[in-house]
């Protein structure tokens, strides 16, 4: 099976800042893949580069979506090919109603029947949006806004969905709810690429995981083995592996990839 998204050795600059330093990644159809990394490691930058949101980037490398080159294209065109992106921090249209926000998600589509079906599907995932469909989106709570952002992206009926930190700023209960919905979306044959800080939650629902540091992947593998990896557990989940008799760890663990 050929990968739905293939990134080959891309490099991205923000002016003089060398943010992505040669990253390759392939996402297999029908999987959930997670990119983990600390703040500033370049997780979101990878997604933004793929979506064409950073002008004149990537500097080097190629990006293939369903076998077609998409690097250097405008985001408008990439979205039309069936790749949707839920940006970090929701970015919903605050002064449009919830319904209008969802309708904008289906902007490129012409089939009224299919749009109505997908609208029902989104309301099925997020019943709260149906109750509030005539409210301005800016009046929703943070969690509801996140749901709206995901729902809006689904209205494009994407083959591949990018989620940029869906758990950002949400309470633990809401985080669990959002992750359950992500799994439900995945069961409906949508491939998902997830970027997260919440390593344990993200890995527990994913098939594959990659770890990004300073613009390079330092580790990749299937999610289960990453969950068991001692470095990952210590540095991304905060689980100290051994404690001394005094009850605290007296040495600092070094990462195996450094």
């Amino acid at each position: 099976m050929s990968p739905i998204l293939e990134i080959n050795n891309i490099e991205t600059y923000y002016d003089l800042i060398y943010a992505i330093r040669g990253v390759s990644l392939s996402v297999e159809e029908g999987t959930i893949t997670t990119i983990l990394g600390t703040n500033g490691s370049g997780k979101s930058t990878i997604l933004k580069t793929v979506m064409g949101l950073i002008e004149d980037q990537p500097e080097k490398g190629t990006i293939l979506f369903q076998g077609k080159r998409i690097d250097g294209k405008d985001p408008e065109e990439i979205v039309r090919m069936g790749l949707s992106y839920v940006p970090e921090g929701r970015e919903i249209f605050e002064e449009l109603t919830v319904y209008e926000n969802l309708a904008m998600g289906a902007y490129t589509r012409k089939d009224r029947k299919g749009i109505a079906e997908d609208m029902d599907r989104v309301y099925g995932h997020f019943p709260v949006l149906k109750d509030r469909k005539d409210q301005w989106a800016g009046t929703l709570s943070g969690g509801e806004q996140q749901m709206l952002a995901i729902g809006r992206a689904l209205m494009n009926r994407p083959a591949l969905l990018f989620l940029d930190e869906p758990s950002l700023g949400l309470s633990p209960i809401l985080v669990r709810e959002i992750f359950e919905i992500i799994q439900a979306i995945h069961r409906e044959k949508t491939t998902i690429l997830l970027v997260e800080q919440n390593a344990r939650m993200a890995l527990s629902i994913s098939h594959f995981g990659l770890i990004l540091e300073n613009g390079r992947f330092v580790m990749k593998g299937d999610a289960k083995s990453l969950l068991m990896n001692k470095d990952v557990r210590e540095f991304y989940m905060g689980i100290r592996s051994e404690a001394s008799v005094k009850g605290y760890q007296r040495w600092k663990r070094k990462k195996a990839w450094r």
Partner: protein
Amino acid sequence: MLNFLQMVVNGIAAGSIYALMGLAMVIIYKTSEVPNFAQGEMALVCSYLAYMFLDQYGLPVYAVFPAVLVFAFLLGCLLEFAVLRRAKEPNVLGMIIITIGLEMILMGIVSWKFGAEQKTMPFPVSPYDSLVIGKLYISSLEAMMLCVTLVIMGILFVFLRFSKLGVAMKATQQNATAARLMGIRVRRILMGTWGISSVVGCTAGLLISTTLMQPYMMWDPLLKGFAAAVLGGMTSLPGAVVGAYLLGIIENLFGGYVSIEFKSTVAFAVIVLILCIKPSGLFARHYVKKV
């Protein structure tokens, strides 16, 4: 009392023009964040074009006016595409200077082609007939201005509220990046807003040119329209309309009861006052982003 009501009615009629100019400026301001000072002169060019076809070629009104409105749309699109989009790393100040430059160029072209003297637009509705409603007089021209303005506002409302393109326009105004992520071609939308704004301004120009037609005719309505837009918060279409009617009425009452010489300046006194008391304007809405 009758005198007072009469002045209010005339104020509303005058406010219609300000409302159109204010709407035109707000439409562009919301998408490009530029107060478009070339707005008046874009309308000026269109009015003179209409004059040329009506007066010099003797074409019928019902053919000329729609054609001019189409021309206005294309002119707006062209200016956005050819001039403003070319600006490298645009900032607000630079964009304002560009629109002022455009304004001078357009006015120069009109003065050079048609001369600076007063002209008379051959227009089917005369400013000297009047309608009598109860005991109030309103000239048929003023009545028409009011109707045209209401119709345009109605069309704009329906377009922005119910059409997919209109909603996409609002989406682009609110968050251009997110709009691109919906597959909305924001550059075309931006061009379209300039076109629509130009059409709205053009109707104002055509209405003004019935009583006053010379190259400086658009300055006063433009500034008043801008003032009305600021009064309404600069980002709210209904705000601009209400601001414009308020301004028209206040101005007329001031002219009637206080001083006719300072009638024009009262608009700016009102602006200063509003900016001191409520700097965001009367109708600006502001949403705090939730994290």
